[in-house]
């Protein structure tokens, strides 16, 4: 009996959330006197997982699994969980992991809780705290089944290094043709740009920026921070920026370390989507903008004046501190 994590990777490299998941699992394993097993799919460097507390890696290597396939991936992870008799199976909140988790839960007849924001409130009964009502509230959920599946929110636990090494074992799940009826035709991925999902810092613009032609300065600020760019709903509805940048309740959720809102008034739906971010900075000319009520730091003033100046300051800071 161990705790199983699905350590998600892209092009063979683990995502940072895989290490956070390992840290989370190690903590529970320590409390319950068990071990952590990670299942990986076409990933290299499984030794890296050992640095965060993984004891054993079940490494799946398969050309058939080169492209993501929800059913096949779920099948492989389910078989890994069964092999390890795992009672707790953990996923990150990356897009692909969230796609698979409910399939695995049904396969294992397990109760599933997503958006988990901290270590379990209690292990017996098994209760976890999760985000609900689009980050406007928390919900404590009890999972009543023998096997439990959790998806852990990004930055909910952080990275904790551990001493130890992971033992790697090749694992070949039996996959059938039925698993491969959905096929990938093509994929478009922005390369060389930080994605909102992976970003530590997100710089976001609203209608206060007056038009799409003014996004250059926001991109400069983002690049100084090493941040992803995002936008409010009106901006994406107006077609100034693509939908994929829309963050908020009906857009993408943001759980960054730092969220910088420029010219965004802070409608309740916007705040709901970004509220899981740790630190919020608002730059707005209107001191009455609701965003000031939820932000940690605020600058009242003209974004067109402040943003370029701040970009220079951040560049200077980075030059001296890296």
């Amino acid at each position, binding site marked *: 009996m161990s705790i199983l994590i699905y350590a998600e990777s892209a092009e063979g490299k683990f995502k940072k959330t895989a290490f956070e998941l390992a840290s989370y699992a190690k903590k529970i394993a320590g409390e319950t006197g068990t071990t952590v097993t990670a299942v990986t799919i076409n990933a290299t460097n499984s030794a890296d997982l050992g640095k965060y507390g993984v004891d054993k890696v079940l490494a799946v290597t398969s050309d058939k699994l080169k492209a*993501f396939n929800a059913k096949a991936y779920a099948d492989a992870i389910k078989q890994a969980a069964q092999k390890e008799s795992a009672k707790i199976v953990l996923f990150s909140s990356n897009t692909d992991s969230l796609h698979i988790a409910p399939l695995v839960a049904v396969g294992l007849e397990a109760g*599933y809780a997503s958006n988990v924001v901290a270590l379990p409130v209690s292990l017996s009964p098994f209760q976890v705290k999760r985000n609900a009502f689009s980050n406007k509230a928390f919900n404590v959920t009890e999972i009543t089944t023998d096997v439990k599946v959790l998806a852990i929110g990004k930055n909910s636990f952080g990275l904790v290094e551990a001493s130890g090494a992971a033992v790697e074992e090749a694992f070949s799940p039996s996959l059938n043709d039925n698993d491969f009826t959905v096929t990938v035709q093509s994929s478009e991925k922005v390369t060389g740009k930080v994605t909102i999902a992976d970003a530590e810092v997100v710089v976001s613009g609203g209608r206060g920026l007056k038009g799409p032609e003014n996004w250059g300065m926001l991109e400069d600020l983002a690049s100084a921070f090493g941040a992803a760019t995002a936008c409010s709903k009106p901006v994406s509805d107006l077609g100034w920026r693509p939908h994929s940048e829309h963050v908020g309740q009906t857009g993408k959720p943001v759980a960054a370390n730092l969220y910088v809102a420029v010219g965004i008034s802070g409608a*309740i739906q916007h705040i709901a989507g970004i509220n899981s971010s740790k630190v919020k900075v608002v730059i707005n000319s209107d001191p009455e903008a609701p965003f000031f009520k939820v*932000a940690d730091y605020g600058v009242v003033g003209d974004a067109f004046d402040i943003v370029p*100046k701040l970009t220079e*300051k951040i560049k200077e800071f980075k030059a001296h501190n890296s």
Partner: protein
Amino acid sequence: MKILVCISHVPDTTAKINFTNNDSEFDTNGVQFVINPNDEFGLTRAIWFKEQAGASVTVVNVGGADAEATLRKALAIGADEAIRINAQPTDGFFVAKQLAEVVKNGGYDLVIAGKESLDYNGGMVPGMLAAILGYDFVNGCIKVDVNGSDVTAVREIDGGKETLSAKLPLVIAGQKGLVEEKDLRIPNMRGIMAARTKALQLVEPTGAAPATKAVKFEKPAPKSAVKLISPNNLDELVNLLHTEAKVI
């Protein structure tokens, strides 16, 4: 093509979120309920299939009698018929089990749900439903086209999108992009009148043991006041982000 659209009945996005009964239940007092926004994109796409390709569109909800107003709205927008499963939707697995019965009995080819509801944000019902039925599943779907039994679907991935080929029957979990915001429909008077005479079938739930239960709800702790920094002193902001917030 027979399409089933799963509809959640959720508080309006601007609703104040409060809890009652010792923080064990959502306080519905004074709250306006709407079709879950992610579901509404799917519903609108389904109606497009109805108008363009002669599909039939059934909407389904697992919920109490109060959800009927939301189902009637879906009928007014253009769905042909509605089903309400008479049970409180307290657990994703339980809801998925109920929906699976409806799909099996109705022989639906395409099941469209929202990728998550804006109340519990579980994001689990569509995937669980697909897994129970043994159907293929596309999550985070931003485009879907059907030609005979061939489906082309686009899903959002971290940092981009991916185009998939699949076959009916299929479950998709949709979001904005399935149709554009401006293409969402507000029921007109003709639709509202027509909805009154469309069938709204009441079905009792099948026995399925829930896998989870909500124990209690909490509101986030009140935030301390914002620290205002002068636009002429941005060094201070950088310094605070570094030494106090420790995020750069």
